[in-house]
């Protein structure tokens, strides 16, 4: 949606710019152009630190991507390292790790989509049905809070709840006479563990956008539905849900565009040797192979593959969301 925002901005600006390219041909206008820049020099000065920052910290690393096509060695340097073409990509696609990484990334993403995505919608509808505003605000305040906690804290809380020797859940399992269950080192439930963490951390926060859409609904619609004899469920079905349908569709599409993004810190913190087969995703792999083993070129290639697929998906998703957004205005 931010893309659309900028696109609109550009459309608005587009006229100005085309005028100025025409102006360029006339020398008088060109002088005017430079005069205006000189007149507003302090404005450009104001933007300078930001421009320099974005250049160095966002665009120079993009140049660093070239090492994915080289055999980079820190001792030889960026420019001197020999070009090797697609060697590192070939290694990635023919190696056995690639399918594992792709499977884990997609599994984590789709579990999120299946179990996490619908929850903020349901939660926001329930919140909207609360009649006591003070109670509503209190519940909102409480469920938004985890969003602001770091993943290290979430991991700590998870260990405290599910740890084998000192976890609370296992305390109860054992007090009922059963064997302690190992939640944290069990490959079968690892993906679900991640989904559970995401739900706890973000489900409440996710309601904000839906509540905003629901707040825009004309209350007369509910009155009318009531007079027509609709009970609460039918009111939700026929008034609330249609009102947020577009937001749901757009968020779903955008989420699909983001399937390559699985919370890196989250997976990294929950990673352990016992679950490595199901826990290794592109980012954690890049960290392990690149930073810890020093295979800079290969890991850059892995990262580049992930970023590139991510970029294509996001752009496609935005196109689709835009289509829906335009049709959705009724």
């Amino acid at each position: 949606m931010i893309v659309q925002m900028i696109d609109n901005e550009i459309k608005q600006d587009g006229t100005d710019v085309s005028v100025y390219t025409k102006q360029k041909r006339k020398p008088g206008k060109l002088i005017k152009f430079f005069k205006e820049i000189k007149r507003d020099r302090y404005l450009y000065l104001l933007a300078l630190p930001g421009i320099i920052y974005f250049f160095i910290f966002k665009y120079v690393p993009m140049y660093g991507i070239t090492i994915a096509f080289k055999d980079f060695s820190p001792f030889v340097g960026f420019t001197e390292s020999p070009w090797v073409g697609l060697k590192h990509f070939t290694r990635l696609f023919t190696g056995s790790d690639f399918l594992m990484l792709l499977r884990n990334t997609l599994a984590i993403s789709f579990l999120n989509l299946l179990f996490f995505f619908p929850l903020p919608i349901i939660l926001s509808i329930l919140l909207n049905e609360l009649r006591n505003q003070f109670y509503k605000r209190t519940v909102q305040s409480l469920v938004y809070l985890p969003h602001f906690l770091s993943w290290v804290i979430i991991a700590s809380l998870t260990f405290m709840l599910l740890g084998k020797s000192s976890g609370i859940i296992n305390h109860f399992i054992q007090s009922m006479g059963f064997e302690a269950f190992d939640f944290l080192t069990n490959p079968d439930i690892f993906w679900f563990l991640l989904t559970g963490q995401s739900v706890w951390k973000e489900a409440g926060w996710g309601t904000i956008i839906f509540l905003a859409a629901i707040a825009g609904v004309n209350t007369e619609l509910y009155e009318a539905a009531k007079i027509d004899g609709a009970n609460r469920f039918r009111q939700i079905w026929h008034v609330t849900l249609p009102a947020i349908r577009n937001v749901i569709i757009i968020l779903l599409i955008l989420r699909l565009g983001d399937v390559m993004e699985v919370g890196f810190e989250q997976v990294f913190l929950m990673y352990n040797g016992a679950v490595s087969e199901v826990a290794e995703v592109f980012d954690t792999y890049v960290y392990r192979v690149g930073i810890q083993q020093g295979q800079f070129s290969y890991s850059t290639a892995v990262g580049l593959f992930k970023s590139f697929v991510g970029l294509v998906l996001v752009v496609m998703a935005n196109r689709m969301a835009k289509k829906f957004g335009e049709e959705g205005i009724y």
Partner: protein
Amino acid sequence: MKLSLGDKVFNITNVIVLGLIALVTMFPIYYVFVVSFTAPAEYLQKTFVLWPENWSLASYKYLLSAPTFIQAIGVSTFLAVVGTICSLIITSSFAYALSRRKFKGRRVILLLVLFTILFNPGIIPNYLLVKELGLINSLWSVILVSLSNGWFVILMKGFYDSIPDTLVEAATIDGCNDIMAWIKIILPLSLPSIAAFGLFFAVQYWNQYFNALLYLNDASKWPIQVLLQNMLIDSSGSSLGEVDPLIKPPPSETLKMAAVVIAIVPIIMVYPFLQKHFAKGVMIGSIKE
């Protein structure tokens, strides 16, 4: 209006369900608080404590006597304060300049800024850049890599867009240049929004984990999140370094909980202010099309 029986049942069920959800959300946080204040002897005996009989500050005393821990809090505070100030200056000046229509080439710059949101070169090129700049093991590495990003610039620009040029023009005629006008007129006007952004930056810096892990090898420079993670995976307590030998170490569990609480408390302290602003901020970012 009279409520039907169905409505009443629905209302009551809804109140209970949402109450339970809020309880489930809050329980882990409540539990860390309680355990961190439980007397070590009582915790060792029960291992599950909902409400301690003997409250104790033993875990906190031990933690706060560990120089490593104090240092980590210092580092995190430094990141949060200095980082936030730097982030605000660079992001708001950039966003303001880009919001002015007379800024030539802002379309191109905005597109370039947007592209940084869509495409991330990845961990390794960023790491190599920081290394080339000689910033490994410097706290500035953590500040610099997260100083600003496309989202913040575009969000803040969206806010500045609503400030009309005429407001600044009057001052410019009086001989103020654009920088002075920004400092004297725009900033005071946008103080509430700046404060809101500042809170978000501060939370972001306080929660820094991975960048610190990546760029800071020297354990004495670790922020609290990295130290906390180390305490978590090692139960021997050695991650805290040297502690006054006269203080008897509490069980590692209550110690960890106390550390978690210390990491949560600043967030909870700013939370009411955050909450006042975030709905607005999120809306600017996501609804505006």
